[in-house]
Each structure stands twice: as structure tokens, then as C-alpha cells.
């Protein structure tokens, strides 16, 4: 049985978020890390956006930094592996560890925490560099320097 649809409703276009990627990105920019991860699982489009659009992660990394990051930072981070990797490998563990230990209040973090994360990120990149024919320690290619960040915190 067909309902009679009022005419004004028929004329109103439906709003599909997936057709407005720029709005979608604006929304995703405001999510926190875990939520971004969840968003990546929604559909292929969202997954593509979250993995390819590094600026999302850049916003995530620097959202709460009090000082604006220097313009020279972006090429360096991108060269070292990108903001997503920076977040996953360095920023997120550092924040969660420091949050646990009470050194960071309210997820606003200072230049020093940023510096520390960047340094650790750089060390991670360096370790992943294979030497020319030099034996990797233990033969595993993944960076072990930051493994200490992945260990559970001793409660």
C-alpha cells in the first residue's frame, strides 16, 4: 500500500554523508584516536579516507598542543613515515603512558612531550633502516626501540 508522500518531502534531497567527503573529513578531524580507528571500519570510503588522509592524523597529533608546530615539521614527519605512523607508534603510547602516570593533565601536552615523541619516532625510523649488508639484530625488521612503549605498564 503506497503511502501518500507529501510533495515537499519528495522534493527535499536526502543527505548522504558519503557524498560530502569534505564535511566527512571535517567531522573525522574532531575524533580521537580510538574513534578514528572505529571510523575506519565503517565502510570502504571511510577506511580509505582515514588511511590516506594524513592530515586527519596530523590534527589528532597536534590538536592539544599549545604552540603551533613549526612549518618545517610536516615534511620531516612525512619523510619519517607520516602522521598516522607517528600517532600509532609514538604519540598514542606516550600520551597514554604519561596520562597514566599523571604527568599529562587533560590531554594538553607541552612542547616537551611533542619533542619526546618526535625523537622516539625518529629513532624508530633509524632502527628500521637496514644497513648496507649489515646484519639486523635478531633478524627482525620491526623496530625494537619502541617496544618498551608497548609493554604493559606495571601497575
Amino acid at each position, binding site marked *: 500500500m503506497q503511502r501518500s508522500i507529501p510533495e515537499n518531502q519528495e522534493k527535499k534531497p536526502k543527505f548522504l554523508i558519503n557524498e560530502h567527503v569534505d564535511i566527512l573529513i571535517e567531522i573525522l578531524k574532531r575524533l580521537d584516536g580510538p574513534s578514528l580507528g572505529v571510523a575506519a571500519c565503517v565502510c570502504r570510503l571511510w577506511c580509505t579516507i582515514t588511511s590516506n588522509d594524513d592530515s586527519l592524523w596530523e590534527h589528532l597529533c597536534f590538536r592539544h598542543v599549545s604552540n603551533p608546530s613549526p612549518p618545517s615539521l610536516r615534511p*620531516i614527519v612525512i619523510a619519517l613515515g607520516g602522521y598516522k605512523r607517528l600517532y600509532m607508534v609514538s604519540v598514542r603510547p606516550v600520551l597514554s603512558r604519561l596520562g597514566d602516570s599523571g*604527568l599529562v593533565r587533560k590531554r594538553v601536552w607541552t612542547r616537551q612531550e611533542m619533542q*619526546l615523541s618526535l*625523537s622516539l619516532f*625518529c629513532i624508530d625510523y633509524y632502527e628500521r633502516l637496514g644497513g648496507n649488508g649489515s646484519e639486523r639484530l635478531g633478524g627482525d625488521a620491526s623496530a625494537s*626501540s619502541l617496544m618498551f612503549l608497548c609493554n604493559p605498564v606495571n601497575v
Partner: protein
Amino acid sequence: MMLGLRTSCTLSVSMKRDHQESCGGSGYSGSSGSVGNGECSSMSTGKAKMWDDEQDAGGMDELLAVLGYKVRSSDMADVAQKLEQLDMFMGTAREDGISHLASDTVHYNPSDLSGWVQSMLSELNYSPTNLDPSGLLGNQQIDGPVLAPAESSTIPSIDFSNSSQQIENQSGVYHDDSEYDLRAIPGVAAYPPNETTSDEENSPKRLKTSFGSNSVPFFASNSSPSALGELATIVAEPTRPVVLVDSQETGVRLVHTLLACAEAVQQDNLKIADTLVKHVGLLALSQAGAMRKVATYFAQALISRIYRCPQDGFDSSYSDILQMHFYESCPYLKFAHFTANQAILEAFATANRVHVIDFGLKQGMQWPALMQALALRPGGPPAFRLTGIGPPQPNNTDALQQVGWKLAQLAETIGVEFEFRGFVCNSLADLEPSMLEIRPEEVESVAVNSVFELHRLLARPGAIEKVLNSIKAIRPKIVTIVEQEANHNGPVFFDRFTEALHYYSNLFDSLEGSSPGLTPPSQDLMMSEMYLGRQICNVVACEGPDRVERHEMLNQWKSRMGSAGFDPVHLGSNAFKQASMLLALFAGGDGYRVEENNGCLMLGWHTRPLIATSAWQMAAVES
């Protein structure tokens, strides 16, 4: 006579062990003795009624009488002691050594507990030396040093009577019989009520030696009073020492045995030392975790020293690998790198071309972070030149060049102009400043960085002065030095040993703390322990130019640098904050402490500082 409550406790414990039933009720202090405590529960309710002070005719202890043993109340402490000794001996003797007790000994009056114990002990005392058992077992006054070398006595605990004659006899006879030699071990860990004997942190007490004029070589001479100071804590005052058999005691015994062995090595009594060190191995098995590993490493090092084993050659690539694992598993090296880098960064704040000379390049793990920080400098990165110094490689591979290549790749990635030069030399003292091709001061600013390298130079006379002069000739903007905070370079072996034992125990504890309950232990952890084990071996087993792990305290380095013509540079709060944050990232991070000491930063585990970073510049010269 007043019997210590503890005596009664152990009496009841040992009785409990022997008889599967407790011996006495709650303690009551009668005019001639108190018995038991709450530990013996099963009998206590039944015997609680026997609390009255009446004694049997003949002064026999009432509670034991119920069990069928006639022990004079006045003898209670004595019997307790003998039982303990017997127990300890039986626990440590070889099996065939005591089987004769079951078959051959004849007991005439089993209810006479005192006599029985005495006869047991004298049975075991069949050595050719004229030991007077009653002299040993009777009123004992343990106020001598703990190291009894007596092999032939079968008393496992330390019996020091005032008979120096006896001791001399004991020292004269030496059976190569390791089990009996256990007497040499301070087996009596006294826990007098007002003392705690945890480990050698206790304030040392002076030992009273009551051996008259007989100077027995095994005992501590006055030349090393501090060494035995710790051992003194196990020496009882005139009240009887009592052995509390519990697991903590083996830990204390382990430490004491190690110290006794080191003392023996110091005195050149290698046979005794050999016996002791084997017992250390046994005792170490009873421990768990860090203490066991430390004890094992120290025991191995002592064995190397006793038998003068040549040390395995300095294989630098292997030690580099070990150091990498040490880098991963604990924050010490990271702390060193971050704090030194911060000092260098601040010194290079306005320079356009910078040159860093690294005295020990290894894998170059310090430099990525510095290069990244330079790259993000507000005015843009300076040109970065690195000179890496390293030891010769065994298989002729050019490890330095490989590291330089990796760093160059990184530099290109982050956009820093990079130049690298490697220098291979056996010792830093072989370097001449001219080789380094330092450019004039207007052109480049130089930093000299040394992480755990300078102490090696102390092994050869004159080397450190030469290197410091070379550094001065380079005219660096800043010199960063990271060294272990320990005194492992004293002239007396025993002092070095005790210092090292304390230091490495703390280090191993911190390693343990950072990977709590991880079974199986990670490869990083094991390799880190091996890395430290090699240092232990060097400190303990080597001498002369081979002993390169000559750690010294920060104050000693400060005075050395000061007299060489350097002024201290204070590490700022930036470095402190970064270091604190870094430590907070580590699991088990609450055990680590960063301390500031007059501009130098020290990283320690709980209260003990373990490494120290300091920064220096050329002293201002009035022209």
C-alpha cells in the same frame, strides 16, 4: 637464667620438624625459662594448662617432659642450640657422611635430650684435630669474625670459642671436602630483636676479635674493617645467636658467602675461596630473580679470578649487540643520550655548522634524536658533521662506515646536511687532535661526547691526561660525559668487590623491575644481563691494563675535569623534564629516579644513583 624467646621458638620449630608435633604451649616465663610460642599450635591448647611455674623435681622442663624428654630447664637454650647445629649439619652434610649415625651410634638414654644431642654432635666430630666438642658446644661467645675456615669441625655454624689454639688447629687441617668446609660460611644469621640484617646496607659494626695474640690468617685483620663491618651484623652480642631457618636467611648467607669468598681472595687463600665460591653456586640456586643472577655472575667472576682464566677477548661487535639489547630493555642508555643531546643542543643554539666527536659510536643510537632536534630548530638545521670513534673490528668489517651510512640516510630524509668520518683505534689515547681535522672555531662549533668511555682510560697510566689534553686542543664548545656512578677503581680488591656487588644488584633489580613477571624473560632482558655480566667479570676477575671497567664517582670525575681545565656547564630543566618523561614511559618507571646534582643529572634505581651525566666547557682563561 633468662632464655631468649627466640631460642625457644627455634627449639620448638626444630622439635616440630623432628616430631611432627609441637612441643610447647604459649610462652610463659618461669623462673628458669620460657618455652615455645604461638608457633606450636597443636599442643598449645592442650598444654595451656601447664602454664604454672612449677618445675618438676630435678628442674626438668615440664612441657618437654610430657613428650618424654628430660631436659633441664637450665639447659634449654643449650640444647636448642645444639639441635640447631645438628640440624644444620645434617642438612648440609653428604648423605653417606651421616648414615653411620643411624647404625653405629649407640644411645643409652634417649630421654636425655641434652646428652643425646651432645653425643650426636660428638659422633660427627671425628676429625683428627683435637676439637673439644664440649668446648664448642658449651657456652659460646660468638664475638669473633665470621670467617671460620675450620674444615674439620663438623659444626656447621660458626663456633668461636675463646680458644685460639683450637682455631689454629682448625686452620691447619684442610680436607678437600667441600661439604665440611661449609663451616667457613657464616651460617649463623643472628636476628637479634633490635637489629635488621637485610643486606650489606646495614651500618657496619665493629667486630670484636677475641683471639688474643694469635693472628689467624683467615680472620679479618684490621686493615679491612669496613669489609667485615657488614658481617658483624650477624655476630651476636653476648646473648646467644640463634638461627632462624627461613628463606630470607639463605639470601643473607649468599651475600655473606660472596663477601667471605672475596675476602679470601683478597688474602690470597685460594683454596678457601674456591670452596666458598662453589657454595655460592649452591646457595644461589635457592634464590630467585635478580639476586640469583647477580650471585651467579659474581661467582663466575670469582672463579675466573681464582683460577686466573684469561678473559675472552674483547669482541667489539658482540659487545655492541649486547649493548643494543641493554639499550632496548632499560632506560640508562636512553637517559644518557637524551640528556647529553639536550646539553649539546643548547650549546649549538646559534651555530651554523656543528661537529660532534663521539668517543664511542657503537650503533650511533644517540644521533638520530639530535639530528631531528636540529632539523626542527627555528632557524633551520645547521650543517651536521659527525666523527665516530670505535675499536677495531674482528672480521675487518667497517662497522663505523655502516653506521655512518645509516645516519646519512636519515639525514637526507629529514633534510640535514651531513658529513661523517670514522676513526678506528684501540684506545682513545692513540688519537691525535690533528687527525680529526678540526676546522677553525669561526667555521664550526665542536662538541665532544663520551658515554661510558672515559673510565677505560684509567687502566693505563697517563692515558686520561693525554685524552683530556687532546680534548682541550680541540677547543670544543661543550663536552658531555656520561659515566657509571660507582667506585669500582679503589686499590683494595675487597672494597671494589663489595661496591660492585651493591651496584650491580641494584642494576639487576631495576632490570627485573622493568619486566615484571614475564615468563619467559625477553631476549632483551637476557642479553642485557649478559652485557652487565661481562662488566662484572671485568671488575672482579681482571687486573692491570685488562681491567677496563674502572668506574669512578661523579665527584672524582668533577675534580679530574676541574683540574684539567674545564668548567662545569649546568644541564637545564629541559633536560630534567625530558629525562623524567622518558622514565615515566618505562614499565616499572616508578622505581627510576632522576636527580639533579649541582647541574649534573643522575639516574638511579630507588635511592641509589647509577649513572651520571655532566657537561663541561673550556675554562675561561684570562688573557
